[in-house]
C-alpha cells in the first residue's frame, strides 16, 4: 500500500469513547455501588466507631481489641478447620463418584441426579433437614445406630462441643460433593482418549492409570475445586445460623456468625468493630487464596 495512503488511514482512526463509556457505565456503576464502595466503606468503618448519625475516629483501637478477642480467634480456628477439612473430603469423594460414573456403573444416570440434588437445596433447607437427621431422640442417624446395636454411639451431634463442628463439616461436604463430581466428570470426559488408550496398551492397571495419568491431567480442575471450596467455607454463615448459632460454647462459631453477632446482637449499633473483623478476614482470605494459587501453580507444562 502506498505510504501516503497508510498515513491517511492512521489519522482517521478515532476512539469511540462515547460508545465505550455508554456500554461500560451500567456494569461499572453496579460494580462501584455494590462491590467497590461497600468494601472501601467497610475499611473506613474499621477505623471508626460507627453509630447512628455519628462516627468517631478511633484509629487502630478496634484492631488492638481484635488481637485480644478470644471469641474471634476461636471463630478463626473453627473456620480455618472447616475450610481445610471440607475441601479434602468434598473433592476426594467427588473424584471417586466421578470415576464411578465415568466407568459407567449400573444406574449411573440415576446416581448422577441423586448425588447432585443436595447442591440444588438452600442452606436453610439443608440445615433443617440435618437437624432432624441429627436429633438425639428420633433422628435417623441415632435410630440406625440403636437398631444395629451401636446405641452407645448415639449422641446429640449438634449439642456437644466435641461433635458439633464435625457434624456441620459433614453436612457441607454432603451438600457440595455433587457439584464437584459434575465438574470432575466433565474434566474426565475431556481427557485425550489417545493418552488413556496408550496407558492401557502399556498394561497400566486402574490405580496406576488413576495416579499417573488421570490425576495429573485433571490436576488444574482438582486444585480449582479445592480453592473454590476453601473460599466458600471461609465465608460460611447460613448453615451455622440455622442449626447452632455458634453453640455449644462457640464450638461452631465462624467468623461470619461472629461478625453478625457483634453487629446486631451485642445491644449496640456500633458497626465499627464488626467492620474491623470483616476487613481483617478479607485480607486473610485473599492472602490464603494467593498463597494456594502460588503453591499449586503448574511448574512445567504437561506434555503428552
Amino acid at each position: 500500500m502506498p505510504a501516503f495512503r497508510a498515513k491517511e488511514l492512521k489519522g482517521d482512526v478515532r476512539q469511540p469513547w462515547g460508545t465505550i463509556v455508554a456500554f461500560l457505565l451500567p456494569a461499572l456503576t453496579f460494580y462501584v455501588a455494590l462491590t467497590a464502595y461497600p468494601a472501601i466503606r467497610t475499611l473506613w468503618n474499621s477505623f471508626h466507631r460507627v453509630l447512628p448519625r455519628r462516627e468517631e475516629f478511633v484509629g487502630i483501637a478496634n484492631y488492638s481489641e481484635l488481637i485480644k478477642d478470644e471469641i474471634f480467634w476461636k471463630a478463626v480456628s473453627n473456620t480455618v478447620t472447616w475450610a481445610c477439612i471440607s475441601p479434602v473430603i468434598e473433592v476426594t469423594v467427588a473424584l471417586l463418584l466421578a470415576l464411578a460414573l465415568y466407568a459407567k456403573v449400573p444406574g449411573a444416570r440415576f446416581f448422577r441426579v441423586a448425588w447432585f440434588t443436595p447442591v440444588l437445596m438452600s442452606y436453610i433447607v439443608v440445615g433443617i433437614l440435618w437437624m432432624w437427621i441429627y436429633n438425639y431422640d428420633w433422628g435417623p442417624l441415632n435410630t440406625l445406630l440403636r437398631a444395629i446395636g451401636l446405641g452407645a454411639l448415639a449422641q446429640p451431634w449438634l449439642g456437644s462441643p466435641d461433635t458439633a463442628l464435625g457434624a456441620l463439616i459433614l453436612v457441607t461436604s454432603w451438600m457440595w460433593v455433587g457439584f464437584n463430581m459434575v465438574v470432575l466428570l466433565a474434566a474426565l470426559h475431556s481427557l485425550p482418549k489417545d493418552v488413556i488408550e496408550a496407558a492401557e496398551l502399556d498394561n497400566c492397571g486402574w490405580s496406576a492409570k488413576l495416579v499417573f495419568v488421570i490425576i495429573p491431567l485433571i490436576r488444574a480442575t482438582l486444585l480449582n475445586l479445592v480453592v473454590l471450596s476453601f473460599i466458600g467455607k471461609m465465608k460460611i454463615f447460613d448453615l451455622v445460623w440455622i442449626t447452632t448459632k455458634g453453640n455449644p460454647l462457640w464450638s461452631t462459631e465462624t467468623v461470619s456468625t461472629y461478625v453478625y453477632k457483634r453487629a446486631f446482637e451485642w445491644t449496640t449499633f456500633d458497626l465499627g468493630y464488626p467492620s474491623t473483623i470483616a476487613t481483617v478476614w478479607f485480607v486473610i482470605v485473599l492472602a490464603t487464596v494467593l498463597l494456594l494459587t502460588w503453591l499449586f501453580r503448574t511448574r512445567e507444562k504437561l506434555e503428552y
Partner: protein
Amino acid sequence: MFYAEPDQVEYMDSGFLLDLSELNWAAVEPWAKEAWMYKGKPYGLPLEAWTVELYYNKKMLDELGVKLPDNLQLSPDAFLDMVKKAKAKGITPMSLGAGDRPFTGAHLVHEALLKKLGVEDYSKLLAGKLAWTDPRVVETLTWIRSLTDAGLLPATFTTMKLAEAHIYFHTNPGALTFLNGSWYTSRAFNPVDKGGQPEDFQLGIMQFPSVPGAVCNECRTIAVGGSYVANAETEHKAEVIKFLNSFLSPEVGNEWLENVKVQTGIKSDPSKMNDKQASEYFAMIAKTNAGAKYHFGLPIQVMTGKPKEVFTQVFNNAFPAGNISVEDAVKQMDAAN
C-alpha cells in the same frame, strides 16, 4: 410506632425513641413502667409482661406419688426425689430447650441464683459487681449440676427448639415439668392441631423449688416483653400519645388477658374475666405469684456486650447441658466482666 423490648437500649442510646412521659402512667403497673425507664424517662408502653413458671402435668405427678405442699414449693431434697422418681419411670423430669432462643435454657440458672442471692446481690451479679466465683454462686451452680446429672433435662436440650419443648412437655413424649415463661399459653392454648396441649391435659403450676441456703425463696423474675414504642422524629406526637393512652384502661387490660392469656403491664382485674380458661389460668398464676418479690428483667435483658454473649453461651446452653464445669463456667463469666 413499632414493637420493641426494653433490653434494646441501643434505641434509647441513639435517640430513636419518643419520650412517652405524657402517657397516663397511673393506669400502668409501676414495675412495668420501671422496665422502660432510661435516664429518668419512659420510652415504651409495656403491653406484655411475664414471669418464669414451672408448669407440670398433674396426672403424671399424682402417678409418681408426689404431693406438693400448700405453698406449691418443693424443698431441694423433695425436688431431687421427684426427678429421680420420674427418671426411674422413663419420664423426662423437665422439658427445656435452648435450640432457638438465647434465654430459655438459662431459666434454671437465673431463677436459682435469684433465690439464693436475693434481688440486690443478684442485680450486682448481673451488673458485674459481684464475682461469679462468690461461694454462694458456686454452691447454687453445684446444686443445679446435681439436678442435671440426675437426668433433669432431655438429651436434646441444646438443640430443642421452643415449640418442640412445648410438644415434648404436653404431648410427645410427655415430660413431668416445663420451665417456661408465662406466655406458655400462646402456644399451649391453641387447638391441638395447631400445636396446643391435648384437651384433657391437666396443667398445673408449681413454684420453682427452694434453693439450699437461699435468702429469698419467694424471689422470682418478671420481665416486660413486647411493648409499643414510637419514632422520636414523628410529626404526630399528639396522635401517638392519644392512641397509646387508649390502651391504658382496665377494660383493655382485661381484654388482653382474655385473648392473649399472658400478663400485662396495664393495670387490670383478672377476677372480672369472662373466659373460663383464662380465668382459671390466671388464678393459678396468682397463686404461685402470691407474696413474690420480683427482679425485673432476664439476665440477657440486663447485660450487654461480652458478658451477655458469654452468659448466653455458658448458662443458656453449655452449663445446663453438662458441657462445662461449674469452675470453668464462673471463670468465663468473671473474665467476660
